[in-house]
């Protein structure tokens, strides 16, 4: 088991290097760099010394060096905890992302939790009462959730919250706690602000997961071991949850690692922009537009790490849940 873990972590490291390198190449692909945009801005303002300033900056950020050297420098510094400097904000990347990373993970975990807590029971009800009105209602709602983009839902909720209910829904903290040190009050305030964005981000994921859970459970309910469990005199609820759901849930755990968690981290970027949440998402989108390479690269590496950790957790969870895939 330890051997397996070490091997998985080894693969993960190789993956991070490959992903960061590839993403660097992709960010490089469009013509120009951050400074060509900067020069345009300075020229537009009629700044004569633009060219000289730009040359200075180019040397400072190492943009005059060849691509490979730049990548290696950044990667080596990354290991030392120095993620480089953002061109746009003219501040170290670590400073920009520091707090946001924590909120991103909290939001992703909250979203995943809500997704599962809602999707699994709904999927189970839908399957157990197949073709009943409950099933029809759940199915219609999950198809709507599946089809509606999260940011649109966020906009609609924002409209109702602000215009109709006069609520404050943007951000993760009330103004009085924004810069306050951590306290019980601040945590409660965070939770109070967290549930709505988490719910919005969750809804798009819930729809699909409900359908998958429903389909899996319907398949499982037709299995002989379910009938055998019933023939033992067990209650229907025990048969459904202990025997059928326990088996039907396996594919969902795989999906959790490979799709749900990463898509929540990345996919909720648009929701985060709409709701003005201090997560990595909005910064990442912005950095890609501005060709702010070190910032974008660091974001990508963090996303990759989250994805790989999510995958590893899912695999361990699966091995824990299902003895058939436990490694001897």
């Amino acid at each position: 088991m330890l051997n397996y873990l070490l091997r998985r972590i080894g693969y993960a490291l190789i993956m991070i290097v490959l992903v960061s390198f590839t993403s660097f190449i992709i960010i490089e692909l469009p013509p120009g760099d951050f400074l060509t945009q900067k020069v345009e801005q300075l020229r537009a303002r009629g700044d004569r010394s633009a060219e000289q300033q730009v040359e200075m900056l180019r040397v400072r950020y190492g943009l005059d060096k060849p691509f490979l050297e730049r990548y290696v420098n950044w990667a080596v510094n990354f290991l030392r905890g120095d993620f480089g400097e953002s061109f746009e904000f003219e501040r170290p990347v670590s400073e920009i992302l520091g707090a946001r990373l924590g909120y991103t993970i909290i939001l992703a975990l909250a979203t995943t939790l809500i997704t599962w807590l809602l999707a699994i029971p709904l999927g189970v009800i839908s399957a157990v009462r197949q073709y009943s009105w409950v099933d029809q209602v759940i199915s219609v709602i999950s198809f709507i959730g599946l089809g509606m983009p999260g940011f649109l839902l966020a906009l609609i909720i924002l409209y109702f919250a602000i215009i109709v209910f006069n609520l404050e829904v943007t951000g993760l903290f009330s103004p009085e706690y924004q810069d306050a040190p951590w306290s019980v009050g601040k945590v409660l305030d965070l939770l109070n602000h967290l549930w709505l964005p988490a719910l919005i981000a969750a809804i798009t994921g819930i729809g699909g997961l409900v359908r998958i859970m429903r389909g899996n459970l319907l398949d499982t309910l037709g299995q002989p071991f379910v009938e055998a469990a019933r023939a033992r005199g067990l209650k229907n609820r025990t048969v459904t949850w202990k025997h059928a759901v326990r088996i039907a849930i396996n594919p969902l755990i795989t999906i959790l690692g490979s799709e749900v968690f990463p898509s929540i981290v990345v996919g909720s970027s648009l929701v985060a922009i709409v709701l003005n949440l201090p997560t990595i998402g909005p910064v990442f989108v912005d950095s890609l537009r501005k060709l702010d390479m070190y910032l974008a690269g660091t974001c990508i590496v963090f996303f990759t790490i989250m994805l790989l950790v999510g995958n590893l957790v899912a695999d361990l969870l699966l091995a824990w849940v299902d003895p058939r895939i436990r490694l001897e």
Partner: protein
Amino acid sequence: MENAQTLAGQTFVNPSMDSRPTLLEVRDLKVEFNIRGGVIKAVDGLTFDIKRGQTVGIIGESGCGKSVTARAILRMIPKPGRITGGQILYYRYSRYPDRDGAKKDVEVIDLTTLDPDGELIRQIRGGEIAMIFQEPMSSLTPVYTAGTHLNEAITLHRLLPIKRLGDQMVEAITKYRRVTKEEARQIAIEMLRRVGIPKPEQRVDSYPHQLSGGQRQRVMIAIALSTEPYMLIADEPTTALDVSIEAQILDIMRELQQTANMAIMFITHNLGVIASMADEIVVMYMGKQVERAKVVDLFYHPKHPYTQALLQSVPRLGPKTGARLASIEGMVPDPLNLPTGCVFHPRCPAFMPGKCDKLIPSWNKVGENHWARCLLYEE
């Protein structure tokens, strides 16, 4: 029409072949499946009874309603099927005295009137009438050990006596309690030993994928018998197994039946297996009971043309004759569009035109303890 017995003001034919007390009486049972294309009469007018400790075989081709009958008894018919007529009378022998210590006598329960998810049927299901299935490979939940499965059945249905010494230093059993976790485990290990699983202390913690097909069916039998049921329904329990394993499983069932005085309803399409197991046989065709007799009578003097054809289609050992194996002519009819008159008439070698395709045969006595549903035997 003899041995007419009255119960609840209704008269039924209750042919009694065995002097042992009755355990289960199926009377004119009808099960229908309402599907989009129409109504399938999966079981249509089935009548038989099972005595305590007796083995009754039910044979017939695939789709003749054997398995549906078994599920009707346990009230586990899958949707959209439902019982549309008849009765299933279960003579419930109280196993444990009531709280005041008085042992109640037999209570007759019509299983067809019970709520299929209710408390009473769940006590009977698994506890008093247990069932083993055709697919041993997938009848155990893959994520639980053999012990977990056994433990479920044992803690649900088994009670242990609380022994007390009475005034005369005689052991008096007046109270029962649920088994503890450790006791359940001991019972589970003992059951695995009895069904012939080697090293049961270790095997009890095995997951299904670590057991062979034969071992899994042994575990299923151990689960079914761990609750000391009055009756075991075996739905083609050896169909999926090798012949050598089949013989072992049948031996175990026979042996355990003798020690526990348990009735067996044995469902199969294998005539060789049924000949070695059953006291009495019911032959079914397209949901209808076509013949019923003692095992010896049925094999040596089959009356219904379907039974005769079925027996002729069994390959026999002997010098090669070059003759083709007899098979039953024609195809199994569409269950949504059954033939008129006798349902077997399009395939029947003794077809009487103008009679068999018009008249529905009734249930006729054709010999001592021998009945058939055929116009050949009608006056």
